[in-house]
């Protein structure tokens, strides 16, 4: 594989590589190939931004509320085992 920095990546292929790219699990040469593509493609740069924003949004989902009755029941079971 050549790593001359020439963009030989199609956008269609980039969107399937985005997770490997974000996870940092790519080889250095693959990464250079993706970076070269991103440098020249504002659409894929937008796609990458959207993926980062998606991940950030997922981290903001509210936690489910815990029913205090569940804790009481567990404490009951805990004490019973004493």
């Amino acid at each position: 594989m050549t790593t001359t920095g020439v963009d030989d990546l199609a956008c269609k292929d980039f969107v399937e590589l985005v997770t490997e790219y974000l996870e940092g699990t790519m080889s250095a040469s693959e990464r250079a190939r993706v970076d070269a593509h991103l440098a020249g493609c504002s659409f894929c740069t937008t796609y990458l931004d959207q993926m980062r924003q998606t991940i950030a949004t997922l981290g903001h989902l509210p936690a489910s509320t815990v029913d205090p009755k569940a804790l009481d029941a567990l404490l009951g079971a805990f004490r019973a085992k004493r």
Partner: protein
Amino acid sequence: MNSARPGDEEPTFKRALEDRDERAFVELVTRYQSQLLRLALVHCRSYAVAEEVVQETWLGVLRGIERFEGRSSFKTWLFRILVNRARTRSEIEGRSVPFSTLATDEPSVPADRFLGPDHPEWPGHWSVPPQSWGSSPESELLSKETLELVDQAIAALPPAQRETITLRDVEGWSSDEVCNVLGISETNQRVLLHRARAKVRAAIERHFDPDLP
């Protein structure tokens, strides 16, 4: 997202539970209850059933703590108990879906948003490119409406994808932790995460631009 504190108190959990330290038990339950519930919901048809599975998990912890040898972290051990119970439960209820959903190869973005392979100049490049969502992190993305939509998009995922994105991106776990708890390889985990993220991104995009093909 829970900030992942290193497990330096973990060895003491075993002793505390064996010593019947009630305060330590309450601390553990409080720390993990909502994460357990969220993961249980992947496999359970209702909130009530998921709560039952979580309760059973804690009772399992109390019964099994003597046998916990600390070869995995306490957290991994706890969540493995939950995943096993939740999966068994969904099998009993006939809701079980084959765990591996790697067979089908769905594209992250529909093929008709790219130029065809025979395009003279730009084969495989965008024909309907994504539009920027803006750069402010406090944008519409965090509105109640968008968060609800993201929640629904996750709920619609196949269970294996849903487990993975829930632990990785909603709870903020490392890929090692997720592989350990779900019993999957790193490659599988990455494929599941990739498919799940692509679908959630697409759902947000469609929300902002309902006219997309």
